């Protein structure tokens, strides 16, 4: 069964189109990265999936209409939308009591043991914790919920690299198993590249590319080419070319690896570079078009 299924998902804010007819189908057991520039529609898509905003088109999350039944959906879906949304007056002990009080799938003992690994004290209020500790607390609460879908919208924004690393490590080792599904958006694409099983590029409210990591690794290749071989390499139709220290790195889509290897070592590109190649170009073209008009 699909965890998330959308057909023609649209959302307009006034005259601004935030989601322009998205079709998607996310199976259980995937870790999907939703990648796009600011204002591309990532958060709108996630908010629709979480039942936080109304939308047009068809959307089904775990077989339910999220807008019609957010509270029921939240028994099986968890989310961290943005860092630091825990109320500042809340005590750690109150957070544990409250979630245990309202959530049928919350395992308090698990939350306690996750918290025991941190330096967070039960009597502290959220306002007394550092930003990194607030995230640890939130993550401990969320990971103790036996949810089928976890949505993370910029969960590590503004955290230092140690906390960011810890965050994804904890998620992978203590939370993720192959019956759960995780959808994550972040600007730090490089950091989650090896966490993801799938990714999607969103731009202007549309899905530009949807790709599994296996497909990504076989389909895209990158090679750094010497100046004298550049013309020959360009013959193979790279989708992007960038200059690093006077040498050109070319990015290919579905090129023959054997042919590429004559120019140098063939690597799998980073998702970030692919993103710049696909979405960055489209944006630049659009901006140029706008400037001309």
């Amino acid at each position, binding site marked *: *069964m*699909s965890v998330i299924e959308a*057909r023609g998902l649209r959302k307009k804010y006034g005259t601004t189109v935030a989601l322009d*007819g*998205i*079709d*998607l*189908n*996310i*199976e*259980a*057991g*995937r870790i*999907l990265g939703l990648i796009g520039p600011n204002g591309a529609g990532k958060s709108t898509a996630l*908010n629709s999936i*979480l039942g*936080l*905003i*109304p939308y047009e088109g068809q959307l089904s999350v775990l077989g339910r209409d999220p807008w019609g039944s*957010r*509270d*029921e*959906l*939240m*028994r*099986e879906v*968890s*989310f*961290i*939308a*943005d860092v*630091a*949304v*825990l*109320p*500042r*007056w*809340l*005590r750690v002990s*109150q957070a544990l009591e*409250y*979630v245990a*009080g*309202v*959530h*049928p*799938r919350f395992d308090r003992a698990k939350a306690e043991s996750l918290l025991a690994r941190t330096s967070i004290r039960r009597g502290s209020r959220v306002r007394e914790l550092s930003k990194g500790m607030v995230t640890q607390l*939130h993550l401990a609460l969320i990971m103790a919920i036996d949810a*089928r879908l976890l949505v993370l919208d910029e969960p590590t924004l503004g955290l230092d690299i140690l906390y960011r690393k810890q965050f994804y490590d904890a998620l992978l080792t203590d939370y993720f198993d*192959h*019956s759960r599904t995780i959808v994550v958006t972040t600007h730090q694409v490089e950091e989650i590249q090896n966490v993801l099983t*799938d990714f*999607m590029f969103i731009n202007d409210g*549309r*899905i*530009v*590319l*949807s790709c*599994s990591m296996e497909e990504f690794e076989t389909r895209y290749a990158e090679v750094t080419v010497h100046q004298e071989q550049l013309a020959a390499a360009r013959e193979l139709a790279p989708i992007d070319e960038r200059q690093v220290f006077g040498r050109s790195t070319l990015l290919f889509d579905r090129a023959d690896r054997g042919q590429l290897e004559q120019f140098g070592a063939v690597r799998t590109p980073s998702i970030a570079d692919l993103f710049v190649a696909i979405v960055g170009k*489209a944006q630049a073209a659009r901006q140029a078009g706008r400037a001309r008009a």
Partner: protein
Amino acid sequence: MTSTESTVGPEPAGSPSGSRAEGPVAASPAAMSAARLAYWSVQRELWENRWIYLVPLIVAAVFLLGFVTGVARIPIPFPIPHKITASHSLSRLLEAPFDFASMVLMLTYVIVAVIYCLAALHAERWDRSILFWKSLPVSDLMTVLAKASVPVVLLPLIAFALIIATHIAMLLVGTAVLTGRGAHVTEIWGQIPFLSMWGALLYHLLSVHALYYTPFYGWMLLVSGWARRAAFLWASLPIAAVIIVEKLVFDTSVFGHMLLSRLAGGPGAIAFPRHGDMPMQAPTLANLSAFLSSPGLWIGLAVFAAFLAGAVWLRRRQGPI
């Protein structure tokens, strides 16, 4: 660029996927009972707003301090003014500080209720915590009802308990001070009809403050769920505007009088005694039936329900501000 469906997962859409760990018809986990969700929702309000009982406690403490100072300075023997002869007038005189305590604490309660309502659905959007609350399986209806129950149920009961506690503290402290000064307190306190006073108080709180004022609370909750800032202005300006426009266009003040009569408590109110009047009477069945059969009560409750429905509608759509 593609507008075709994006499938994430090993199988394309529509293919059989019965082998998954979670079957296609995995049972939805049972919800917590409504009573349990209500309990924790109200508990959350008490955690978040400790001031709604701390402030009245401080007011009561300050009042007690003033009372002790006053009692310590009464001349002994207790002077009975010459013009007062009838016993009920004497009891009226003795009762005055107790009535005053009730009025001060009820006024405190009204102010607390107003401040609470205007912040209730605003604060969680302001500090973005609405995103945390909405990530839990508690409906918007439950949240709004829990918040509405604070001014309508919780605060009247807190006010009542606090007033009784203050009265008892006044009795104890007064007895200690007066006995210490050689006065016979039993005959003094014996003059005061505490039970009927407390009965009248409870009736007044439940009928007027809890039920008759509900449209005010509902309106303020609605505004708190809608205003981005300055909820107090958004709550009061439209009311002022209606009054002014009505005056200018029709040269009448029906709306203003309606609000005033509701503030006065309608048929549910038991008039507080003015100086020299009869002491406040315990409510009778006649009071109760007049209150329950007044259209004003039911119209008010209907308006309250409509405002709450609006607040739920807003809570469902609103995010952080």
